[in-house]
């Protein structure tokens, strides 16, 4: 460990570990899941980082405002961590923050699509989306109010998303929908992230690339199962959906999977070499539907990530590992709060809330 690493990570490590330490524990989540009403849930979140939710709900009675606040909080947390770092490390953190930016961009483009292409009334829904700069200085207002797709492309000119959006035109969007555009945006931010990660010092780079490779492999598997088996997309379309990195794409198993006819594709064979344990679990499943298998892979991904971040937190504190673990845990926590809010508000059963939240 170099003095540079100590200097770089000492403060942010202490800060983020303190935050991780104050995150809600499983026993608290179990209590929260038993809340009968939204007010009860929000009152139970007093004294946590989610305390403002009560005031927001008290002022507005609007569940979507709560979701908007959760997203906003996530953005601010990412930007705050970026501020604690400098140089290439700050750029890497901002590169992670692009995920949120792309999520916001996709949300706004979807609304634009509903309004401008499908001629549906989007009413007040833009008000729930994040409208301040996240990483790039994008004029979100211009995008939602764009008359044509070309205006959106123009607005995103000079941003890292320019190349992705300019691959398509109004005709494609109107005819094919947004799926390809959203896939392209996802690939764009991951590509940017990987470029930034390459600049990191050895230990940080290895750690981060390991995480990204594993995530890429598992997300690619999810897409191959969902779209290759459930929706039976042809192999050319599937290839364009693959995320950069990982060790699955280009392997014999991958090519065989694509070459096989959709109804005969086998997720177990696909993952057998890279994730043998997952392969065994998939083979042992009683419910072999694509939905069930996708959920299994998602759970496996979550477990693998949780384990690796736990290892990072137990290891050398002066690496980027603490930051990665913090982002993962915050994302998980936010997701659980969102699920609880929606589940309790819409009257889901406790068992359903538990299944989705945990």
């Amino acid at each position, binding site marked *: 460990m170099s003095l540079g690493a100590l200097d770089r990570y000492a403060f942010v490590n202490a800060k983020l570990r303190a935050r991780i330490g104050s995150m809600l524990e499983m026993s608290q989540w179990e209590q929260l899941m038993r809340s009968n009403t939204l007010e009860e849930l929000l009152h139970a979140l007093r004294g946590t980082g989610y305390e403002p939710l009560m005031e927001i709900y008290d002022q507005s009675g609007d569940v979507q405002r709560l979701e908007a606040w959760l997203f906003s909080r996530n953005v601010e947390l990412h930007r705050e961590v970026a501020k604690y770092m400098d140089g290439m490390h700050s750029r890497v953190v901002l590169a992670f923050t692009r995920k949120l930016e792309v999520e916001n961009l996709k949300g706004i483009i979807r609304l634009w699509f509903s309004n401008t292409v499908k001629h549906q009334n989007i009413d007040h829904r833009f*008000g729930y989306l994040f409208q301040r700069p996240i990483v790039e200085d994008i004029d979100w*207002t211009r995008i939602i109010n764009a008359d044509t797709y070309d205006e959106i492309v123009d607005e995103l000119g000079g941003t890292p998303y320019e190349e992705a959006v300019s691959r398509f035109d109004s005709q494609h969007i109107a005819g094919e929908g947004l799926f390809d555009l959203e896939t392209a945006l996802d690939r764009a931010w991951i590509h940017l992230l990987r470029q930034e990660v390459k600049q990191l010092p050895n230990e940080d780079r290895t750690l981060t690339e390991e995480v990204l490779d594993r995530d890429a492999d598992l997300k690619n598997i999810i897409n191959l199962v969902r779209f290759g088996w459930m929706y039976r997309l042809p192999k050319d379309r599937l290839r364009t959906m693959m995320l950069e990195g990982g060790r699955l794409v280009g392997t014999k198993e991958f090519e065989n999977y694509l070459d096989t006819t959709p109804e005969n594709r086998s997720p177990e064979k696909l993952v057998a070499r890279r994730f043998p344990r997952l392969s065994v679990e998939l083979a042992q499943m009683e419910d072999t539907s694509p939905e069930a298998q996708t959920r299994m892979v998602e759970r496996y991904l979550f477990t693998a990530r949780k384990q690796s971040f736990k290892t990072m937190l137990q290891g050398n504190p002066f690496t980027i590992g603490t930051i990665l673990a913090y982002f993962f845990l915050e994302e998980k926590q936010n997701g659980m709060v969102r699920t609880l809010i929606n589940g309790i508000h819409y009257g889901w059963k406790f068992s359903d809330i538990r299944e989705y939240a945990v």
Partner: protein
Amino acid sequence: MNMFTVPMKLLTAVVLDEATESVKRVLLKLGVLDFIKVARLAPQQASRLAESAGKEDPEAYANLRSRVETLFIQANIANPSTEKLDPDTMEPIDLSRAKRTVDQVVEKVNALREQQKQLSQGRIRIEELLRYVSQRQLQYIDIRIGKVDKGDAQQLRARLANQASVLIEGRTFNDMVLLTLKRDRQQVAPMMDSMGWTENPDGNLQKEALELLEEELQSRLRQLDEENANTKAKIVGKVQEAREPLEQLWCGLRLHELMGEISSNFSHTRNTTIFSGWVPQSSANELEQAIRNASEQRCVVEWIDAKEMPREEVPVAVDDVPLLRPFQKLVDNYSVPEYGTINPTPFVAISYLAMFGLMFADAGQGLVILLLGLLLTRHFKTHRVVKPSMISADLAKLFIYLGGASIVTGIIFGSYFGRPWLPPLWFDYHGVVVGHEGSGRDVYTILGITIWFGIIVIGTGLLLNWINLIRKKDWFHLFLDKNGIIGGWLFGCGVWAAFSFVGSGYSELPQGPFLPLAFGVPLVILLTKVPIHRVLEKRHGQFVEEKGVGSLILDAVLEWIVDVLEIFSGFLSNTLSFMRVAGLGIAHVSLMSAFAQIAELAGGGIAGLIVAILGNAMVIALEGLSAGIQALRLNYYEFFTKYFTGRGLLYNPISLRSHAGRRIIKRS
């Protein structure tokens, strides 16, 4: 006041089944029994005992009570006082009916929340329009000025209800002014056409229209805010309307919940109910009498003294002294003392106040803190707190004490808002720090005082530890532990040697054989610690790993080295740690001097007064916080580590009182 933890006794009672309900009521009313499972006392018999049949499911009542409390919080109503809880007048609760009562109120509240949501969405629409209008982002909006041939403004408004829009009529000009979003054109244009909209061709009206629209939008926002405030008030009103039945329900639910908890600790045979638990000795007779009365003397009650039970199983309670409650909180935050040991609270009260006073010695600033404490205490008395916050009633009381301590030390050292308005009772602290003091004292004097203060605190800690160990009859640790007599002996010798060294001008330690003997004897005795420990363990029947002589000697020597290092470095660092008291006191004076100079540089008069006031405020806030935290740290680390093991079990009786679950008891 009992200086030690409250003596406890273990009760075991058997009553006939038919007396169970009345016994439960008296147990709840008295609220002194900390239950244990009977099966723990007689594990061999456990299989023959049945647990309670679960007539009252505490969880169901707790759940519903929580829902009622949520309603209370929304309406800013405090939970009913526990004084209203009376087991004797308890009535059965039909849970499904109770749920319906709560559901009805919740439904009304939800209906209002839905209205609130609509208002919120309306606000979003208006905010977006206002942003475009006020920032003149005209490319995003459509402003139409004209009239409709088919229908009227009301009908037009109704048609545009789901669009972000503003319609103004009958203002400066005759035509209507309609504002919509350009992106909604696809939906709006056909509507306009179907109503026969005719546009006014005069383009000059746009500017006036914009101003009208901005005004209208701001007015709409204010209106929405008002409506929202009214809706919120209605929500509060709906709960307030149902306040009385909800409060009664809350009381009933709470009683049933507690009765259910009591039931869950009962065991049964075919005809009897058996229960057991810990009771403070002072309440034992009263409890036994109450059980006998409730069961019409048809019971068996047995008592076991706490001395006959493993110490770690006996729950810990301390006497409640209202004056000392803020300090009790400080102790509670640290841990629970072991049963039978000293109650740290009175000692913490003295040490904490002394430390704070030494670090923050100013009568004027102390008066401000005291007044703040009094104001806050009064506020908490008149406003029952519904939502917990960082500033609590106990903290407010603590301010009063801290203020008092500062006033006392301020008078002793002659400091009043950093000024020497009155002569000090001891010496001029301020003068010593800035170098003006006439009696020859200097900063080292202050350091010396705080070192002595630290020695007294550490010495007191050791003494308390010895008392605890004597009461526990733990002779081994009393003599051979680093905080035992050997440790104290070495500490005392160290203090003596250190002061001699300082007294000789930092040139030599005390001469003669006394010093080597004074250190040498306890160090040699310490070497016997490991062998004696092994012998004692064997005598108590504990497993002791067989080792060769060489291995035993090595163990003893290694442990001895560690102990010696811990004793010397630990006591040294703990003692020197008290220099922070001097440090903070000096910093306090330095800050006040700095502000005094700034006030002079500001030319005195009003400007100087403002600087002085702001300076004092800043010092009270920053230095006060600092002193409070450092005093706490010194107590927790330098003082508590000498004697407070914190291995106690919380005394947690099932009780009606709001502090049920806390470890303090009131003596009648």
